[in-house]
């Protein structure tokens, strides 16, 4: 089972998306992290539909006040799973736990009312009025709790007497105190038994408020970051204006823009070529992020998106800590590729994203590995993107190229600071077999030693 927790630190940018969700309670955060990767189209459609509905609600200016109140109430929800487990295990609760249940039940009732006021019916919170009645014998509807004297007349009488004789007769005082404790214990037992019946609705309510919190946070995030509702499709995945939210924010801090890209993934492998620093790896990472966000029911970072759900997303993006596993970078990469090939053979529907395949070995064999991999990828129910610097690939597969340096637009010296202004990150179809030769130029921009550049230039066979 793949949960959000298991991938959040493996997928570049996912931690950023999770951290920037404005969840109201830490309960919701735990729920979110244990959300599952949604494989079934139906559950995906349902999840995205729920976010979409919430999105329309928060977009409605008239709801702003209610949303604010709702978020405040959700913020008061504590994670009382432990206490609820005690109830369903027929344990006797102490005052602190009974207080937790009472406060929770009152909050649920208030949240229900707020949801009703905006006519929200998708997630219906179970009624906990009976729970409130048990814990609120004086009908104050204030979220305080102790073993009220109104639970038991004898207790009420003893407590009164106890206060009176406190200073005069310490022995009798102690006797009465112990009698009171005894009666209180009986009452706690009765209350806990009565609550046992409501263990299920209480748990349901806890899950539901956490879920509403999550939906609300996803919708607010979508609004704030300009994410879009992905359309679930079966043939081709298509992004218009795809962007990387974290990178966009970093660039924004430097007063730079992130250039969004359009890309379409068919059911056949696609090769991406382009100069160094042209953002090929970013494209791969962003597509991985968007696909994961989609599969966990988030809106995605694009202006328009149609996405094919997949059973698994498989990556080979060379930032594995291969040394840690005692593998060379080539060995680690081959293991990843092997896993992808296995998935193809098993007929699994996957998205495979491979960065600079076979880059760490000699070009002859490297080229052969790329060709062979693409041949195999062609056969399965698989959407894949492979970036490469190799030319002379004899496959007939689709090829895209990052436009790269806009030579005609360069008016002053290109430096590491302004190179971003002269880069065109958009992807174009590229059916000839020419690979951009801009490595030396980029190296020059980076300020690499001139002797090296001159010598390298001499060695270059043009």
């Amino acid at each position, binding site marked *: 089972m793949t949960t959000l927790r298991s991938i959040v630190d493996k997928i570049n940018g996912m931690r950023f998306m999770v951290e920037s969700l404005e969840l109201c309670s830490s309960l919701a955060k735990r729920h979110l992290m244990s959300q599952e990767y949604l494989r079934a189209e139906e559950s995906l459609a349902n999840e995205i539909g729920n976010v979409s509905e919430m999105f329309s609600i928060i977009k409605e200016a008239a709801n702003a006040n209610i949303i604010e109140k709702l978020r405040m109430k959700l913020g008061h929800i504590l994670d009382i799973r432990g206490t609820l487990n005690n109830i369903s295990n027929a344990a006797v609760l102490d005052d*602190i736990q009974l*207080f937790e249940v009472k406060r929770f039940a009152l909050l649920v009732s208030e949240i229900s009312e707020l949801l009703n006021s905006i006519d929200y019916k998708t997630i219906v919170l179970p009624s906990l009025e009976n729970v409130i009645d048990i814990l609120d014998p004086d009908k104050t509807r204030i979220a305080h709790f*102790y073993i009220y004297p109104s639970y038991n007349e004898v207790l009420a009488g003893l*407590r009164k007497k106890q206060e009176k004789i406190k200073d005069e007769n310490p022995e009798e005082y102690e006797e009465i105190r112990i009698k009171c404790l005894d009666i209180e214990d009986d009452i706690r037992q009765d209350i806990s038994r009565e609550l046992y019946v409501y263990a299920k609705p209480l748990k349901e309510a806890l899950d539901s408020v956490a879920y509403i919190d999550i939906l609300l946070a996803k919708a607010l995030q979508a609004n704030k970051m300009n994410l879009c509702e992905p359309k679930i499709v079966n043939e081709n995945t298509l992004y218009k204006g795809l962007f990387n939210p974290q990178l966009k924010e970093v660039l924004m801090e430097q007063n730079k823009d992130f250039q969004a890209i359009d890309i379409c993934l068919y059911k056949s492998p696609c090769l991406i070529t382009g100069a160094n620093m042209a953002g090929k790896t970013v494209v791969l990472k962003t597509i991985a992020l968007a696909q994961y966000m989609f599969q966990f029911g988030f809106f995605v970072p694009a202006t328009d998106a149609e996405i094919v759900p997949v059973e698994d997303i498989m990556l080979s993006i060379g930032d594995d800590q291969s040394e840690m596993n005692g593998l060379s970078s080539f060995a680690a990469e081959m293991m990843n590729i092997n896993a992808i090939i296995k998935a193809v053979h098993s007929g699994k529907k996957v998205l495979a994203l491979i960065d600079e395949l076979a880059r760490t070995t000699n070009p002859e064999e490297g080229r052969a590995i790329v060709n062979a991999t693409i041949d195999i990828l062609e056969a399965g129910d698989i959407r894949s993107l492979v970036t490469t610097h190799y030319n002379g690939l004899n496959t007939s597969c689709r090829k895209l190229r990052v436009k790269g340096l806009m030579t005609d637009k360069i008016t002053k010296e290109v430096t590491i600071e302004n190179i971003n202004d002269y880069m065109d990150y958009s992807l174009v179809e590229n059916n000839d077999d020419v690979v951009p030769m801009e490595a030396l130029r980029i190296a020059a921009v980076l300020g690499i030693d001139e002797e090296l550049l001159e010598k390298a230039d001499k060695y270059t066979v043009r």
Partner: protein
Amino acid sequence: MPFIEDILKYKSLSIVGLEKNTGKTECLNYVLRRLKDFDRQIALTSIGIDGENVDQVKQTHKPEIELQKDTIFITSEKHYREKLLVSEIMDISEQHTSLGRLVTAKAKGSGKVLISGPADTVWLKSIIKQMESMKVDTTIVDGALSRLSLGSPAVTESMVLATGAAVSANIPQLVKKTKFVYDLINIEEYVSDIKEELISKNKGIWAIDADGVLHDLDIPSVFLLEKNKDKLFNHGTVIYVTGAISDKLLNFLRIQKNIKDIVLIVKDFTKIFVTHQAYHSFLKRGGRINVLLRTNLIAVTVNPVSPEGFVLDSETLRAAMSESLQIPVYDIKKL
């Protein structure tokens, strides 16, 4: 007894013992008992857990503080479960202390309870704020003066200091030691627009330049000051030290050429762990110290009985103390 009416003027009060067995708990119980006669909502909490209440034989905590009916108190879950009085739970914190979450409750009768509160100053401050919003007139903090404590009683508006024979069995010595703490409590407050920003800093050494802009001096600790001497005055001579102030630091600053321009800022007086001599030599050479949090000392209580059993003459002690401090001094045994 007079100082009760002074307490009512403040939204928060801490009661602090200079040493163990200086009668802090007696003082606290006295204050709680007397406040009962005024129609005021009182809340009580503490800073962390106080070792004074540990029973040395059984190693268990035994409740010492007697709460009056309707007093609000804030204590840990563990101690709430051990309480000996009837009380209504009003709130439970989300944050945890080492003894569990903090329970806010209201006493429905009188009785004993052990109070353990938040572990740090920021949390304590927010509790005092929360109590204000719950219509509490005065929040009383059972305070501790400890080098180990992250929480400082100086966040309260007012303070009562408990001292006594446990500090010294010699009256002039006892008066001198108490006077020194009294002087520290009365250190002038640093007035600035960036005070809140300064309070929120928990690490490092900072400088405030002539334009009131804060600079991190990038000196990891006062122990590394001599090595980083060149950096210290890069942004002027107003220096904020977040951690504890030691003799070594004061002595180092004292011998600097620009000592007359140096203003040393500390969070509050509890951060100053220096000897009387080092402190006064520093001031004498022209150095200045300011605090960010300053509290008003309302009264000093003295306990003439030492833990070893000898008893100082109450009247002589009281008289000597009030003469030196010029504020009301009371014998805790006679309250």
